[in-house]
Every structure is written in C-alpha cells, then in structure tokens.
C-alpha cells in the first residue's frame, strides 16, 4: 500500500514540476550531475505525502511549517540537509536520508511567537553543496 502511495506521489510530483511555473525564491543555484532536486516547496501541512497549501507566507497561528522536497535519479542511498534560517541565523539543520531511485523528504519547524519575520531553508547535498534556497515569511 505504501509503495503505491509513494509511486503516486512521485507521478504527482513529476506533473507538478513540469506543469507549474517556478516559484519565488526557488532558483536552482547548483545542478548536481547525479541527483536532481525535482520539487521543493514550503507548505502548511503534509497530507498523504502531498504538500498542502504551498505558500510564501505562513501565519504564526499554524504552529508548524513544513519544507517538502523530492529528488529524482538517486543512484544510491545518500542524505541531504534542510537548514532552517531565521533572517541569517541558522536555527536548525536536519539530516534526511534519500533512497534510489526517487525519494521525497519532509522537515518541519515548530513556530513560537518570536519566530515572526523572514526565513529561508537551504537544501544542501551531503557535501554541503547548496541545491536550493526556499524563502518565506512567518506573519501574525
């Protein structure tokens, strides 16, 4: 059942990547030869392995914000990082494992009242090469 869900997720992700325009702050800064970051988005929640309400502004009242990434052409088991920055201060660095051939990963941040303001998440590979930077704001 889980395999089916994952397959569906991959297909959906593929369609999303090729049908949707690039979002603000989603500039592909480095394109790794082997592994491809096919989808990366900030969202309000994850439901059934799908990002819900992707956005660039999140209310503090949500309590939590998610970073969703999908990778293609994964040759071997590897890992990536989701680095959460509030303004330019590193708040959290999360190590996430990827498995061939496609894999989606999620990290989240519990929000507190002091977390309002501009944020970004840096997605880097195991060698700390920046793959993408997702920019968003936490509002009232």
């Amino acid at each position, binding site marked *: 059942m889980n395999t089916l869900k994952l397959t569906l997720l991959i297909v959906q992700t593929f369609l999303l990547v090729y049908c949707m325009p690039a979002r603000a702050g989603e500039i592909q800064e480095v394109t790794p030869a082997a592994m491809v970051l096919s989808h990366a988005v900030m969202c309000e929640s994850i439901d059934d392995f799908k990002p819900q309400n992707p956005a660039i502004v999140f209310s503090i009242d949500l309590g939590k914000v998610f970073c969703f990434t999908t990778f293609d052409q994964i040759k071997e088991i590897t890992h990536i990082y989701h680095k959460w920055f509030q303004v330019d201060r590193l708040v959290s660095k999360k190590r996430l494992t990827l498995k061939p051939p496609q894999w989606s990963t999620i990290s989240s941040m519990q929000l507190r009242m002091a977390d309002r303001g501009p944020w970004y998440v840096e997605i880097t590979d195991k060698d700390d090469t920046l793959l993408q930077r997702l*920019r968003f704001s936490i509002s009232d």
Partner: protein
Amino acid sequence: MIDALTFMASLRWQDFLDIGLNGFILFRLYILFRGSKLIRAMPVVILLWVLKGAAIFTGLVVTNWAIQGIIAAAALIVIIVFRDEIASVFQTGNLKTFLWGLPSQGDITPLDIIVESTFEMGKSKVGALMIFPTAKDINDLVQGGIDWDGKLSMEMLLSIFWDKNPVHDGAIIIKGNRISRVGVILPLSRRTDLPSRYGTRHRAGLGLAECSDCLVIIVSEESGRITVVKGNEIKNVKNMAQLKIIIEGHIGKGKKRDSALWKRLFEYGTPALVCLTLVTGIWFGLSRGRETLKSVVVPLEYTDIQKDFEIIESSTNTVTLHLGGSVPLLKSLGPQQIKVLLKLNAASAGENIYTVSSKNIVLPPGVHLKNVEPSSVTLVLDGTITRQIPIQLNWTGKLSEQLILAYADIQPQTITVTGPQKIIKSLTTLYTERIFLDTIQTSGKIDVVVILQPPSLKVPDKKNIVTVTYTVVQRDPALH
C-alpha cells in the same frame, strides 16, 4: 629685561605681519572715512562697546542684553544712514587711491589762480574784496556772510564778484584752497588820511586790516586798481608777480613747503601710530592675554583613503583635545576652526593604528595643543567588492485567513551591492522593507525598497527598489 627678550623671541614673523596688516587696514579705513559723518558716529559705537564690557564686568544682566541689542541695531542703522558715504568711498578713485592714496594737499593756497583772477577782475573793473586770515580767529571782527566752503577757482571768484550776484558787495574769506565764506561785512576804517578815491570797499578792507593780521586784497570797481592792505600798510599792486610775492609773504609759502610736509606727517603719522598701537594692543590682548585651558571634542576626519578601501571599524570617532591659549581666543573658538585629520594613504587592509598628535591637528593661530585623548586610533580597513545579492521579501502583519499568499515574483531578483569585502562575502540575503499583509485581498504588484544593512553597503545609482508581483489564492476550506 630677560623676560622681555624671551617674549620678543617668541613672536613669529607672522605676528608682526598680522599686526602690520591690521594696523594698515584700520589706518586706511580712517583715511577713507576721514571727515565723513560716519567717523563722527564711531565714538558712539565704541562707547556702547565699552558700556557693554562694563555691564558684563559688573554683572548687569539686563543692561548687557539691552546694549547688545542696541549695538546690533546700531550697526544696521549706521549702514542705512551712511549708505551714501560708504558707497562714495568704494566708488571713488582707482584701486591705488583706495589702497594707498592720501587726500590731496587741500590746505595749499592756489596762488596763481588768485593772482590771475584778481588781475582779470581788475581788467574787467569788477570790484572784489578778499581776506586771507592767519591762524587767528576773525569771527568777532566780521559780520554776516554765508558759509560757502567751495573749492577756489577762477570761475568761482569771478562769479562771486559778478555785479549781479547778491553777495558781490561783501568780502570773501580764503582759507587754504577753499573759499570758506562769502558776502562778509567788514568793519570800516575811521582813518581820515585816506585818498578821496577810496570808497566803502577800501575802507572796509582797511578796517579789518587795522584790527587784525589779515591780508586783504581790494579790486576797485571804478578804476580796476588792485590794492593790498595789511595792518596800516596800503600797497598798490602793479603786476602779477608783485601780488604773488605779497601773498606768499603773508602765508609764508617758502617756509610753508617744509612746514606743510611736517604738518602732513603729523596729520597722518599720528592716526597711523594710533592705529598701530590699537591693533598691537588688541593683538596682545587676544593672543597673549591670560592663558587658559579648554577641552574640545572633535570628530575625526579621514583623508586620502585609497580607492576600494573602506573603514569597517574604528576604535573611536572623536578625540578630546585639551587646548591652551588666551581667554578671548579660546572663548571665540568655533568647531569649524579645529580639524583632526588622519591621512589613510598608507593604510592596508586589516587593523591600522594611528597616533593623533599636533601633526594631525589643525588649530587657529594662537591656540596650542596640550594633550589629546585618546592619543591613538585603531581603524580596521577592508577593500570594497561588488556582488549580486538575492533579495527576500519581508512580509508582516496578518493575512486574511481565507487567503494564501502562494507566490511572489521579484524583479530584479538580485541587486548589485558594493561594500567592504568581509561584509559582502558573508552576505547571503538582502531584505526588503516591511510589506503589510493586512490590506492584501487580491493578487497585485508593488514597489518596495531593499534595506541596505549594514549601512556601509552601497548600491550603484541608488537602485535599491524592486517590483513585487504577488499571487493570492483562496484557501480551500475542505483541507482544514
């Protein structure tokens, strides 16, 4: 004696030049405005100034305040009231006259004009009566007349004694090169031994000559004969040379040249000396008066900074200077007169230590440096680089709960920033000013300013404004 010599040795050539130059300026002002009403008003201004000093000294607060106001108003009134005189001084003559010239020798009697005019009147049988007084006052001896004070010329003399002129019957008084008075009535002589041809004009001339030491020249209206009277002596003049000798003898022309020189020397030498003394007094009062100390906080000024270098850190931005000098000099010391300059032409990237000494400090003359705090300044310099920096939007406020701000496009997505290498290299993002969410209902477009933080960052042509196109979508209620 040794003290005096030490003191004299402490004077610089600039000090002598300072005194001399200001003495000369004061003397020239006196020469230019000499005799004008403006100079006569000056003692009043000086008196007010002295009164102000006295008021300050005795602690009369209101009096001091009032006199200060009067002086300010007086300066304005003097300029307005004497504007014509001031203008005439600046308009007359050439630059040489303005800077160097002295008034012409106004007191030298123009003998040739008098002699020629006298014989011209004699030839035309125009009656004339001219008085040449000495230093003795003759006001008690003569009556009437009109103050004239006109420059002596042949035309003037001929027109005064022209028979249609209302004052032609009276005498004129000649002082130096000016006719000081016309139409003057003289006492008549009571002598009985006078020739019958002598009329009232001759008797009047004789009358004054008898009771004074004046020389009187009479031109007969009937015969055109010229008679000169002095004391009881009556002399008929035959030619111009004789008349000239007589007048010269009376006014002492031969001796006069020397005495005039001495007189001029005294006339201008005395005020010149007074001006020089006054300026010397003021100069010593200002620069060598009672010594005092003053502390002044002065901002540091950096010069000759190399291209592509910037100061990113400084141990201090100001230094405290402890200054010495006379009370008036330090009292009048303004911040614009003091400069602390640090030349950064030899500075390198990283930490640079500069010693602040008298070499770096510009002070007005007469003020000297006692001490500097701090005596050294540490500057951290860095080269400047230019880089493209991505921009992040700084959303704030509260977006309607039914809406999701799904997407925003920034144009341009990066801006070119120049700044210190160290700062620019560590810079990952530049943030915009706050963009308020509360008013957003639909998708739209706005221009926002990118905040340059730290302030040492510079944007070419100040292009730090970006256009944001944002997309708002309705929240799907089924998802929550």
